């Protein structure tokens, strides 16, 4: 386990300066995630339209660098996407973390894929996997609720 694989520049940067932090204006979907073992919390806010598109996306939360970076990256990548694409991106991300899979591009630009891939180091730190996935699970639940 190489520590630098976990704490990459890009993660430290997202952790220190999380993107899309706060409540986005006129959000109409929100959901909370919580890890009772360590107290990490995330609250996701999304503005979705009738065409099932995530127009705006943001989060608030407390947690370690990994969990903040992960939520930050999530909001960055999923904002502006349609539900179905958002769900594919989320599920690809979770598969990558769990099963060492390569990320599919899913019409994301290369930069975004690289950013998501930067969280892959967490695989070697099993106790930290939840930090990296909590926000993604939370958004997935929230969209599922809307999608039915």
């Amino acid at each position, binding site marked *: 386990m190489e520590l630098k694989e976990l704490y990459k520049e890009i993660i430290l940067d997202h952790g220190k300066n999380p993107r899309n932090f706060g409540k986005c204006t006129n959000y109409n979907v929100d959901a909370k995630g*919580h890890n*009772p*073992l*360590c107290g990490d919390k995330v609250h996701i806010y999304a503005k979705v339209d009738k065409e099932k598109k995530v127009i705006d996306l943001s989060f608030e939360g407390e947690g370690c660098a990994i969990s903040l970076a992960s939520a930050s990256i999530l909001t960055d990548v999923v904002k502006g996407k349609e539900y179905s694409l958002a769900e594919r991106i989320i599920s690809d991300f979770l598969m990558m973390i769990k099963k060492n899979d390569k990320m599919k591009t899913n019409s994301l630009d290369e930069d975004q894929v690289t950013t998501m891939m930067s969280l892959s180091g967490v695989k070697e*730190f*099993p*106790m930290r996997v939840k930090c990296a996935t909590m926000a993604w699970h939370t958004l997935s639940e929230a969209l599922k609720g809307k999608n039915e």
Partner: protein
Amino acid sequence: MKINEIRNNFPIFKTKINGKKLVYLDSANSSQKPKTVIDRMTYFYENEYSNIGRSVHSLAVTATNKFEETRDMVQKFINAKHREEIIFTKGATESINLVANSFGEKFIDEGDEIILTELEHHSNYVPWHYLRKKRKANIKFVKLDENLQINVDEVKKLISNKTKIIALTHLSNVTGGITPLKEIIDLAKTKNIPVLVDGTQGAPHLKLDMLDLDCDFYAISCHKLYGPNGLGVLYGKKKWLDQFDPYQGGGGMIDEVKKNNITYAETPTKFEAGTMQTAEVVAFGESIKLLEKIGLKRIKDHEDKVLNYGLEMLSKDNSINLVGTPKNKASVISFTLKGIHPHDIATILDDDGVAIRAGHHCCQILHDKIGVPATARASIGIYNDKEDIDILINAIGKCKKLFS
């Protein structure tokens, strides 16, 4: 592994008892431990020890992973649908107390009925007695047939629209009788009555398949399964466990704790309060490995041979009275000897290195029924053989001579 080599895996058999070879016929009480289990525990304490689930340092990560691996192994071993259906407890006793408590709180009201049998161990009666007192519920006991066996018709007779749960043993720790569980569970299903199986004696001798058996709860003691003591398993269907309030409260089983309220984690976590028996859980994985390596069918075949030889030899002596003669049985032989009290038998047998148990074996209802306060019990594990039976028979001969 050859059957006659199994014994070599158990270090205890190097111990001499009163200068004699140890003939251990008390496995229904607790089984001996193979070297792999003991060594795994030692290795864990010497190289890997840590508390699980709470710290993020390397030792804790390893410990947590190994602990959860055993949960997966147990799930496979008993063929449960979900890993979340496997809860680690202190023993079968705690497993049953947990269900009686959490099921009772939610589903048992005044006048409701709990069906047990006359064959039950105190562990599968006392917790229900608590409910009877707290909730003013009633307990009905299934009457045994003349072979001291549980019979589906007798269960049927007791079922009413007030029956809330049926709790019964898989294999009697006195008669060795195997309960016709499938029939009883099928019957219960038609009335939507959940069934708890006390599998303490079943698990070491019978192949388990929760999906096929379809019981709602199954209680196991690891120390009778060649595993460490102080550890048990409760299998429970997720649909029940999800509804249950937690049992013991403490660290690790919570979701959020505020001054005015507390919410709980999901199953199985909500039932595993406080520091768990990490070393024991990890080592129990080795018990499962051993049993699967030998194969449960081969174990049963081997034990049946020794059992039948024992039954044959004891039957020849008409001063011996066998307690219960169920047709379908395993491992356990209880008996009385004319004019000699079981305690005296046990003490005299011990002089020859033969370890059996004497008493009511925590089945006082059954002993009241047969009208003797105590019986002698020889029970067979994977390490026993016909020679053990020969030594037993010989030692019984000595008893009779001493008392003649």
